[in-house]
């Protein structure tokens, strides 16, 4: 038995019985981790632009440390050079000088306060780095596929030596700051992975050539860091599959050689990763099924004696529990599930899984980082505000009787928060079930069923907080006057509208909701009016059934309400399913044969269609007047206020919930 930093006894918790493999100890080097849970390193752009740790960063990590219930909590990867060549994000933490130690210590202490194991990470971003410089560094001058990155400056042997030295010095500082575990990041196209890959490393010196040559830098790095760490375990993250076969990247066999070499060099644990930022294949978005990459962990286990950990769409505890039980994995890592719900594994342990706020794998967290903005979460309004008391759910100063009209995501989010604060909350919906238009949205293909998870979560929270539901009840002015609540929250969802062009009154013009819930008949040639998410969702839903679908939308750009880190998936699927999109266009007329599309500059294109689907929305002002006439406090949230997306609905709901 290795060194145990904190005592944890999980035996009395329901989660430990349900998922026994997740709550048993494991040894990394000489250190015993009480469970199999790891919060994976997560860049958050919450540090100062000078690399110093901030209150926001400490608050963020402390909450995740609470979540791992004694497990491993790893801070984001730090850059290690004063020239900032290795820096990949404007708000990345730095460790190139002793002046950063106090801030780093705050992070380690914050993790320890929660009786969790404090992990740190070294991360030179290589060919995707140099965010504040004119260039980035890499083994060879191979240009990146995407323009956002800097031109690559080839590292000389002196540069490599210097970089190695910086890894060692940063490790020293991180150890001084009190971290218990050191990880070296060699993932997604960062420096170490650049050296390893036959795509990015075309050197002919001893740091290039065959896979052994390309691994030399990584091996030296592990050996040097390990020497310094002594009893502190050292982990490494390396690709099991780079998913770069289109540009001549490593074979899976070569990747397994890198694993064996890393173990030989002294790594105490292998964190298995997949894909690069430059890969053309999706890896972690919602369209990739959960558990899709577990076979890579299993493959790693066949090549290694050291423990194997892995994240990558392991969003529910049953998957890692089973994999660990079957000897295919040792440690369950999570990044985005714990961005969405920092206490996710704690809730698993405590048997309150239905209260987990589920990540919808939209990758807006990443999109924000790439746009130099602090991290936010699509589904978790508190993310990156953990330090800010304004975001806390505090008991209400005056208890109110609140009527929430609409049981969609905005109404549900608002309901549970307000009820938890002590208000009496009544949720009304004319439908017989909870969810509002998320019911239909979650019928779209490519993983959109996961969107409904928010309703499952809010339902559990609302029921626990004592919210009363009045389903199948349409709220009328009379009902409001009869109930006379203190506050009305209108979360009715948007008004789905038809256009004013001739022909919109025809019988073959149907609503997006009716199509998705199977109430409308749809022909083989379809025009979808509206080029935002609802239009894209229904277009894919029908195109997958073999229909010929054309999208016509007024927005200049398709899917402007979808973040770019997910939009490329939809665009790919639209192309794959042969959906045509006319953006910056409108429907001029619906005729017997189809529609006449009018481009922004006046050209007219006839498109054959037997069904036209309207997915355009407007704000919904229904009931507003009666509430105001009766001097009742009024809030309008979600799409009823301004039609946007699920995220805005959730954030609106939360913000009003903590304010009422």
């Amino acid at each position, binding site marked *: 038995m290795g060194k145990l930093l904190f005592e944890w006894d999980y035996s009395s918790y329901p989660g430990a019985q349900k998922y026994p493999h997740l709550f048993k100890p494991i040894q990394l080097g000489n250190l015993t981790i009480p469970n199999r849970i790891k919060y994976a390193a997560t860049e958050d752009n919450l540090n100062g632009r000078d690399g110093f740790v901030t209150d926001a960063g400490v608050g963020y990590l402390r909450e995740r440390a609470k979540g791992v219930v004694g497990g491993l909590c790893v801070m984001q990867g730090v850059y290690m050079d004063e020239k900032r060549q290795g820096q990949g994000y404007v708000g990345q933490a730095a460790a190139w000088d002793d002046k950063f130690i106090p801030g780093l210590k705050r992070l380690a202490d914050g993790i320890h306060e929660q009786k969790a194991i404090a992990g740190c990470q070294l991360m030179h971003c290589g060919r995707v780095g140099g965010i504040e410089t004119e260039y980035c560094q890499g083994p060879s*001058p*191979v240009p990146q*596929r995407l*323009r956002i990155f800097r031109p690559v400056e080839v590292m000389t042997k002196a540069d490599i030596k210097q970089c190695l030295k910086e890894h060692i010095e940063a490790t020293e500082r991180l150890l001084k700051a009190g971290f218990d575990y050191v990880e070296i990041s060699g993932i997604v196209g960062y420096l170490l992975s650049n050296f390893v890959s036959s*795509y990015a490393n075309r050197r002919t010196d001893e740091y290039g050539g065959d896979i052994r040559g390309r691994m030399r830098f990584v091996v030296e790095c592990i050996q040097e860091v390990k020497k310094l760490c002594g009893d502190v375990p050292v982990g490494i993250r390396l690709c099991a599959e780079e998913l770069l076969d289109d*540009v001549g990247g490593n074979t899976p066999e070569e990747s397994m050689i890198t694993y064996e070499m890393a173990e030989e060099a002294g790594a105490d644990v292998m964190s298995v990763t997949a894909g690069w930022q430059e890969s053309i294949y999706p890896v972690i978005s919602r369209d990739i099924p959960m558990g899709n990459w577990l076979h890579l962990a299993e493959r790693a286990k066949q090549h290694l004696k050291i423990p194997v950990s892995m994240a990558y769409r392991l969003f529910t505890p049953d998957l890692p529990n089973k994999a660990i039980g079957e000897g295919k994995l040792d440690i369950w890592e999570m990044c985005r599930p714990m961005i969405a719900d920092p206490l996710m594994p704690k809730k698993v342990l405590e048997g309150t899984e239905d209260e987990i706020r589920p990540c919808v794998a939209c990758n807006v967290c990443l999109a924000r980082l790439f746009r130099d903005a602090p991290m936010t979460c699509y589904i978790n309004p508190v993310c990156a505000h953990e330090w800010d008391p304004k975001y806390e759910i505090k008991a209400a100063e005056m208890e109110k009787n609140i009527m929430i009209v609409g049981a969609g995501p905005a109404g549900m989010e608002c309901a549970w928060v307000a009820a938890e604060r002590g208000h009496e909350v009544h949720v009304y919906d004319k439908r017989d079930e909870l969810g509002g238009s998320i019911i239909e949205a979650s019928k779209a293909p490519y993983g959109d069923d996961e969107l409904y998870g928010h309703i499952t979560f809010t339902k559990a929270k609302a029921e626990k907080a004592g919210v009363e539901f009045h389903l199948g009840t349409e709220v009328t002015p009379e009902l409001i006057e009869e109930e006379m609540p203190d506050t009305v929250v209108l979360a009715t969802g948007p008004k789905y509208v038809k256009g004013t062009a001739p022909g919109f009154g025809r019988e073959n013009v149907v609503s997006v909701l009716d199509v998705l819930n199977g109430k409308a008949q749809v022909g083989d040639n379809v025009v979808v009016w509206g080029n935002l998410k609802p239009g894209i969702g229904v277009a894919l839903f029908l195109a997958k059934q073999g229909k010929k679908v054309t999208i016509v939308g007024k927005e200049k750009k398709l899917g402007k309400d979808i973040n770019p880190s997910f939009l490329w998936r939809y665009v790919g699927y639209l192309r794959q399913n042969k959906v045509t999109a006319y953006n910056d266009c409108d429907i001029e007329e619906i005729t017997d044969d189809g529609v*006449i599309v009018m481009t922004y500059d006046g*050209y*007219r294109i006839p498109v054959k269609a037997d069904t036209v689907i309207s997915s355009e929305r407007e704000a919904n002002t229904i009931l507003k007047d009666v509430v105001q006439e009766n001097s009742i406090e009024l809030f309008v949230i979600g799409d009823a206020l301004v039609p946007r997306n699920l995220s805005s609905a959730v954030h609106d709901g939360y913000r009003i919930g903590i304010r009422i």
Partner: protein
Amino acid sequence: MAVDPEKEISSLWKALQGSQGATRRTFYQMREAAIEFAGPDADPFDIGVKAWEIIGKDTGKSYLPRMNLLKGEDGLMMNVARAYQGLAATNGAVVKIEKGEGPNEIFIKWERCPWPTSAKEFGASMKEDLLGCDKYLEAFLDEVNEFLGTNLKIETQKAIPSGDGVCLRRLYKSEDK
């Protein structure tokens, strides 16, 4: 109101030709600006050729997302040839692709190209027009080669500006590094 397709297509086609003409004019107007700015010691020929090199490099960079080795180097050669063809079409040229005798070469033929006429109109030499185009295609290819570690080359065998009636270029896999 019914659509008159002939009217829609003919006005779109006119607009397309208009914008192709505007693109060529803009190039030469920018070239003029660069010549004036560079002063009397600079050779307009060098400026024109350099401009084409920059355009080729940048165009190559923007095409990287579409370049890959999934169908091997032969597939890549065809990707590049098609890219040249598509780019030429947007400029108003007509280009045909023919496979060579061996697997390692493709012939690309510009059956018509409006650029030499524009060069004449703006007082640029045929030599500049030809070398500019060569540089443009080479710079594009260099970017692809650097990205994928390949060694594709392109050579000009016939050229409209030299009076050959067509531009014929050979895209091939070079053995020497």
